[in-house]
């Protein structure tokens, strides 16, 4: 306890003075502390804060590099860049997405489904990922958005370059497409370029495979900008370094022609150079327009593509597997020749071959009469091949199939290729633990049963038979590539096969109307029809589209001095009659483009315009019918997954086959009657047949 002094005024005054002194000292201490803090911030930490202030002041904007071009063999662009105006949204900076889109919609003429797509993307995008609103704008629209920027935070109008595919759908599967980088891409690469508005990354095909080569180095623009992003002044610009181009072996006009010529069918065309193996055309139709994919896949587009039973998203050249049907017969014949069989050795075809107590039918139940090897090929007689295949044996045939490229894996720059199957006894033992049976040979020699190939392999087979060279498909142009080696076949064997194949088209064969209308150029070929369902379900010619036979045709020209080889597959075309007219016109285009174009233009009048016109019509119909009500498109990853699932080849049957497939009522029904009468019985081909200029 303190002693209780009587409190007086004097004591209080004294106390006040002491405490005021303490207070003053306290204030002085605070003052010194503040001064020290000031010194610490502005002198000791000056470097750090100066840098921070500079990074505030100076805004570095990346300029997306111009992508390297994709060129065809003659230097024409398959994919280029064009200057355009575009508008993007940065989700992070958008204050009210609905209001912003509400303002933008009338300015840019956005439709309800487009707005739906943009909203989907905004929902999915991470905050910093730009979302494309519109591209390829004209100056008026671009300017209209630019002047209203102050009320549109997060909206970025800019001029730049966008990817342009002059022939659109024709190169969709060949070149692939570009699109904005996904969150996963950014996760993987951590490159600020990936989240720069306007930058696109390769999403599929060559665009994806050659991404590093095509990308280039971004430019940069340094500006002084306010906190809200308003540019105060330019501090300098560094130009971008465009990506390096890639030159393909593709012949651009031919690629486009083939794509258009497939028309309404679902099919693929591969054209190869018989001297080098260069792939001149590689088409899978129907396709998608890579130009409209670059801003992401819209809901209407997705609905349209995913509902199409012609599977436009599948690259059928590399991912489609088909029983090759009778197109294997020249290959089988060549294996017979190389095994020492006399080509003049004949069998009598009475419409079937009896082995033991079983009869294996020829496609022509009335029989071909006496049939040697040449007739076996040009009349596609099954009995001839049944008979000699039993003598020669499956192993020799399978070996030849593999030598000619069936089942072979080619190093093409595309993911997820399917390579098919060339069956032989060892394979069957391994796979099904059962022995090779007679009917397996029967099936395999006519390209059915377990045998599955893709159209590229068929083209390789055609080119190897045509040239006798060990050609491999090449997609990147290399003028100094080593000369391909010889396959080691005897030339007279090849000549024999060539002559027989020439007969198919230019003689008594199954594809008389495939003759090409060019003086002095004769095309050799071989038809093939592969059954999709058993004869008990449908006859393969009409009925449900899904049940019709696949049509095949392999060919090369000129037959006596092979220059180009070609393979055509038409899914559910109802037989080879759907395939060889396409092959004929595509080959014609190589020798006389004018004539070929004329034929195509006549067709396109009946089909409702060229590929792009038809796609636009279809799109508009879908847009009118579904509008914004179409379910939203899946994001990139999902879409890729669905496409991949779609692309998976039909799994090999888990149980071994137990019988011979009855051969499809082969080739051209016209040829069922004797060849000289063929002209009178034109088949009801799904695609209207061209004018009969090719008839003899």
């Amino acid at each position, binding site marked *: 306890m303190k002693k209780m002094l009587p*409190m*007086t005024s004097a004591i209080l005054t004294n106390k*006040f003075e002491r405490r*005021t002194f303490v*207070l003053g000292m306290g*204030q002085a201490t605070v003052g010194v502390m503040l001064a020290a803090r*000031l010194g610490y911030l502005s002198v000791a930490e000056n470097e750090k*804060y100066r840098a921070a*202030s500079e990074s505030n002041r100076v805004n570095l904007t990346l300029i997306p590099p111009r992508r390297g071009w994709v060129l065809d063999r003659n230097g024409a662009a398959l994919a280029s860049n064009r200057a355009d105006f575009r508008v993007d949204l940065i989700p992070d900076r958008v204050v009210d997405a609905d209001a912003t889109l509400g303002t933008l919609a009338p300015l840019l003429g956005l439709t309800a489904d487009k707005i739906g797509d943009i909203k989907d993307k905004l929902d999915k995008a991470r905050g910093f990922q730009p979302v494309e609103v519109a591209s390829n704008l004209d100056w008026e629209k671009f300017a209209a958005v630019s002047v209203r920027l102050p009320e549109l935070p997060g909206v970025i109008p800019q001029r730049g370059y966008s990817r342009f595919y002059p022939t659109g759908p024709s190169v969709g599967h060949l070149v692939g497409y570009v699109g904005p980088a996904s969150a996963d891409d950014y996760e993987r690469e951590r490159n600020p370029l990936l989240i720069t508005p306007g930058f696109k990354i390769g999403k599929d095909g060559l665009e994806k495979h050659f991404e590093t080569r095509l990308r280039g180095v971004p430019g940069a623009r340094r500006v002084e900008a306010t906190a809200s992003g308003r540019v105060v002044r330019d501090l300098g610009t560094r130009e971008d370094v465009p990506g390096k181009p890639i030159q393909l072996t593709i012949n651009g006009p031919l690629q486009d022609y083939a794509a258009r010529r497939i028309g309404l069918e679902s099919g693929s065309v591969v054209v190869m150079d018989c001297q080098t193996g260069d792939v001149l055309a590689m088409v899978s139709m129907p396709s998608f327009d890579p130009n409209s994919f670059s801003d992401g896949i819209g809901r209407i587009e997705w609905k349209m593509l995913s509902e199409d039973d012609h599977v436009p998203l599948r690259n059928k050249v590399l991912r489609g597997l088909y029983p090759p049907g009778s197109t294997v017969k020249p290959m089988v014949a060549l294996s017979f020749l190389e095994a020492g069989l006399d080509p003049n050795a004949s069998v009598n075809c009475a419409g079937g071959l009896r082995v033991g107590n079983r009869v294996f039918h020829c496609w022509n139940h009335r029989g071909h009469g006496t049939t040697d090897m040449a007739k076996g090929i040009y009349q596609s007689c099954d009995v001839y091949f049944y008979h000699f295949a039993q003598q020669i044996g499956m192993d020799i045939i399978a070996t030849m199939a593999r030598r000619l490229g069936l089942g072979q894996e080619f190093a093409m720059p595309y993911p997820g290729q399917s390579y098919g199957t060339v069956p032989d006894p060892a394979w069957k033992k391994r796979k099904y633990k059962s022995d090779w049976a007679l009917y397996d040979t029967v099936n395999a020699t006519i390209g059915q049963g377990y045998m599955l190939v893709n159209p590229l392999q068929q083209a390789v087979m055609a080119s190897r038979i045509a040239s006798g060279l060990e050609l491999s498909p090449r997609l990147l142009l290399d003028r100094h590539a080593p000369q391909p080696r010889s396959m080691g076949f005897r030339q007279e064997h090849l000549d024999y096969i060539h002559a027989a194949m020439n007969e198919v088209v230019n003689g008594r064969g199954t594809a008389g109307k495939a003759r090409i209308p060019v003086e002095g150029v004769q095309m050799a070929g071989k038809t093939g029809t592969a059954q999709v369902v058993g004869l008990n379900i449908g006859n393969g010619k009409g009925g449900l589209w899904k049940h019709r036979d696949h049509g095949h045709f392999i060919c090369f020209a000129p037959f006596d001095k092979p220059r180009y080889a070609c393979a055509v597959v038409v899914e559910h075309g109802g037989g080879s009659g759907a395939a060889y007219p396409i092959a004929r016109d595509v080959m014609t285009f190589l020798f006389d483009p004018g004539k070929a174009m004329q034929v195509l233009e006549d067709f396109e009048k009946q089909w409702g315009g060229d590929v792009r016109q038809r796609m636009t019509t279809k799109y508009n119909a879908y847009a009118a019918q579904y509008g914004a009500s179409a379910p939203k498109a899946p994001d990139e990853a999902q879409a890729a997954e669905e496409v991949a699932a779609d692309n998976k080849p039909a799994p090999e049957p888990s149980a071994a086959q137990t019988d011979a497939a009855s051969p499809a009522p082969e080739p051209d029904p016209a040829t069922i009657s004797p060849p000289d009468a063929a002209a009178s019985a034109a088949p009801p081909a799904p695609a209207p047949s061209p004018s009969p200029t090719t008839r003899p």
Partner: protein
Amino acid sequence: MQRAYIPQAIARQPWRVILPLTALVVFGSMVLYSAAGGHFQPWAVTHVARFFVFLVMAGLIARVPQDWFKRSALPIYGVLCVLLVLVELIGGIGGGSQRWLNLGFMTLQPSELMKPGIVLVLAWFYSVLPVGEVNGWRAIAPAVLLLGLPAGLVMLQPDLGTGLAISFGAVVMMFLAGLPLRLFIGGLAAAAVAAPIAFFTLLHDYQRKRVLVFMDPESDPLGSGYHITQSKIAIGSGGFLGKGFGHGSQSHLDYLPEAHTDFVFATMAEEWGMLGGLFVLFVFAVVMHWGLKVASNAPDRFSRLLAAGMTTTIFFYVCINLMMVMGLAPVVGIPLPFMSHGGSSMMTNMICIGTIMAVDRWSRRSGTGLL
């Protein structure tokens, strides 16, 4: 002497504080000129104009006799409390927090006026309190009541900064009035215990967030930490001599928020560097020193407490604002006296200055009387 030629009314003015203050205001006006992108409008001119208007007002306050101060202390306090309640009611009707009363010709912020108001009423209270009661509860309870009512009302608004300013002024008044030291030590201890509890129960979410962000501003560089971070960048990048008049990128490019009000010191330090900062600190030191000196020389208990309290009020403004802009205190909306643009704070501070000038005048009168 030269003094003889100068009218006494002018010679009597405390020029040793008016001149530095004027220099500070003009300097502040230059900073505002630069912050406006090199324009006198909208801030620089009104800033100087207001200062001179309020300087005249301060001169008038200085001429008010002590009696008037004493007699009006309680009524003024009462009116201010009524106004605070009124603000609360109107705010309640209007929805959301409101700190202003619209009088038609001007907006009045009663909480702002309460800062000198609490000092005045407590100075009066302790001057009328019998000397012997200083150690008893009679010295504490009424003072706590006098403080509690307005502080509570202001905190309700909610305006934490002003509430703290009022409380700080009142506590310093009690300290100087000679209340037992153990009260303050005990109070400090109690505050240390109560602060964490108050932090989790009394504070609003946004206030709590501010405190948390203050602890670690970089944790939220784009949110509430933004203010502190950008202010430190502005001050730090200025260096010793600054970036030069009109060359502050932080303020000109809008990175610094509130560049002309609460963060005006950062705007200044960016362009004038540490040197400018030391000048500002120096002027405030002069003002504080003058204020406490006037208090020490004052003739009676009322005027002593009044002068010291007014000085403390200004000090609290300066101290909290500078600590805030330099990242030593959480962001609370307290402007920097004589530099921040804003009429209310200028008025409050000039009332404080005027009151100190009045005390100065009384002491001189009694001084001359002794001569």
